[in-house]
């Protein structure tokens, strides 16, 4: 009996804090989901129990697709995130490879510069950048955000890959060099294929950052046809003081799902990316 009692106590002490954190983390998502399928009569009733749905309905989703450009915004968001992630990975590799693999004067300075640029927050740059984008006549084009997102993603990818590249042993490359391969050949044929896990980590992390971006999209994209999901939801589903909560929550849930699904396939890579900066340095 004593051991049984101890086991229960240990289970409570393990699970209580875990479940508490899980509850806090997931409550807003539960609330999004449940609001999005409640009819308005339940949403704005003070008598119905707010925590459950009595008569579920898909009306808010139907309205969302019929009265807004939500699908188009989703497409824009994906397109921008994928293209800017791809650009950032390529430029990040070009920056990280020499820094990680070749001894040359100035390497240390560039590495510090990369870290510093990564830490420059967008609010410091958005006003001058807005002027630059206007002068380039790129306002209200997806090109505006495809060009500006990599300003934060390139230093990030470079920094993450720099750490990853340093963990790959040198022997294969040295052997290739001795066999007469040029540096470019060694990098492309021998080195880069070894680094796929690093690319997935950097890519998945950059992708979620790009999905999350709001400030540049808010400033550069003011036409509904080019908006991304966050900007579209804020600018077009909130009209003055009128809130269509059912539609808003449907949009918030649908907007969260793509990134959550992609993330769920690559959790380990994502966590590796998240912790590499702080733990491995």
């Amino acid at each position, binding site marked *: 009996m004593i051991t049984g009692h101890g086991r229960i106590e240990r289970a409570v002490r393990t699970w209580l*804090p*875990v479940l508490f*954190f*899980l509850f806090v*983390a*997931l409550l*807003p*998502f539960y*609330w999004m989901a449940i609001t999005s399928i409640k009819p308005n009569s339940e949403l*704005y009733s003070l008598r119905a129990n*707010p*925590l459950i749905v009595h008569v579920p309905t898909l009306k808010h989703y139907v309205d969302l697709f019929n009265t807004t450009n939500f699908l188009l915004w989703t497409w824009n968001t994906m397109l921008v995130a994928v293209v800017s992630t791809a650009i950032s990975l390529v430029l990040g590799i070009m*920056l990280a*490879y020499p*820094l990680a693999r*070749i*001894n*040359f*004067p100035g*390497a240390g300075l560039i590495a*510090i510069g990369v*870290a*510093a640029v990564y*830490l*420059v*927050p967008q*609010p*410091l*740059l*958005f*006003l*001058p*950048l*807005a002027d*630059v984008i206007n002068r380039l006549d790129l306002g209200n084009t997806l090109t505006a955000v495809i060009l500006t997102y*990599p300003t934060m993603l390139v230093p990030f990818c470079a920094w993450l890959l720099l750490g990853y590249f*340093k963990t790959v042993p040198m022997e294969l490359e040295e052997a290739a060099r001795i066999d007469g391969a*040029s*540096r*470019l050949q060694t990098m492309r044929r021998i080195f880069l294929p070894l680094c796929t896990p690093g690319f997935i980590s950097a890519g998945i992390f950059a992708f979620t950052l790009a999905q*999350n971006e*709001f400030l540049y999209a*808010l400033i550069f994209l003011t036409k509904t046809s080019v908006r991304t999901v*966050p*900007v579209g939801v804020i600018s077009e589903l909130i009209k003055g003081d009128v809130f269509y909560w059912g539609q*808003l*929550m449907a*949009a*918030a849930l649908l*907007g*969260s799902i793509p990134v959550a699904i992609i*993330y*769920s396939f690559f*959790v380990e890579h*994502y*966590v590796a990316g*998240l*912790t590499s900066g*702080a*733990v491995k340095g």
Partner: protein
Amino acid sequence: MAVRAEELAGIVPRPRRPFSLGEWLDRGAVFSWLMMAPPILFIAALVGYPFFYGIFLSLENRPVAQPGTFVGLQNFIKEAHDPVFWQVVRNTFVYTIVATILKMIGGLCLALAMNQHFKFKNIIRALMLLPFIVPTVLSTVAFMWMLDPAFSVVNRVLMEFGWPKPGPSWLGNPVLAMISIIVINTWRGLPFYGITLLAGLQTVPTELYEAATIDGASGWHRFRYVTLPLLQPIILIVTLFSVIFTFADFQLVYVLTHGGPQNATALFATYAFDIGMGSGQLGLGAAVALAMLPALAVLIVAISLYLRKKS
């Protein structure tokens, strides 16, 4: 046989090898700088140039879509006499400091909770990270609805426990609005702390705990004298990162309160946005944004040097 003695002896200087582009390109430094040139040019054009152009703008009186006139430090002087600006400074520091402390303590608790052995650990860890990966704007909209005074979950639950009607106006009262943005920022940032510190915890060798236990250390002592000192470098770096991005936060406040009520939640970024984009005074807006720089610069230099030392 007309072989000359010098040739036999091999002392005739060999003809200089012709310059080969391939070999030149293959030299370490040449290859490196050529490879890095495109990303460096990109960053110089879209981070470096805007940065210095922003400094230039801050010295101009520059209404939107009109040529600017140089006014020297007048924007900064105007700023210093603007009571709202000083309120923004206060707000930003309160927001950053309180949210960071909450995230640090909460994140440590989360990491310790997750460092135990239990079933479904990987799935639970993945779910715990959701607040951090879901677009901030979307989760903030959900919180906005949760905090709705009349119809939503927070106040409905409060009233269930006997809170008098009407419930607190979370986003309408200056103090409550500040509390709300701090709590939501903490909710979003907590997983970043938790999962990073968890990774740190897993690198602590178990022998150290065993040795401490044999020496008679209690649970608290093991935490205080073994875990905490070993985690310290990670806590430091995570905190510096988090401070920078909390200090310069924009999305959460823009969506939830727009800086209101009466500027009670306005931060540097939202105030610079209001002035630069809302009232179209690019110069003054740039000056407000640049006012972030001294505090940020200290942090950025500290982190860059620290990362350099570690690598």
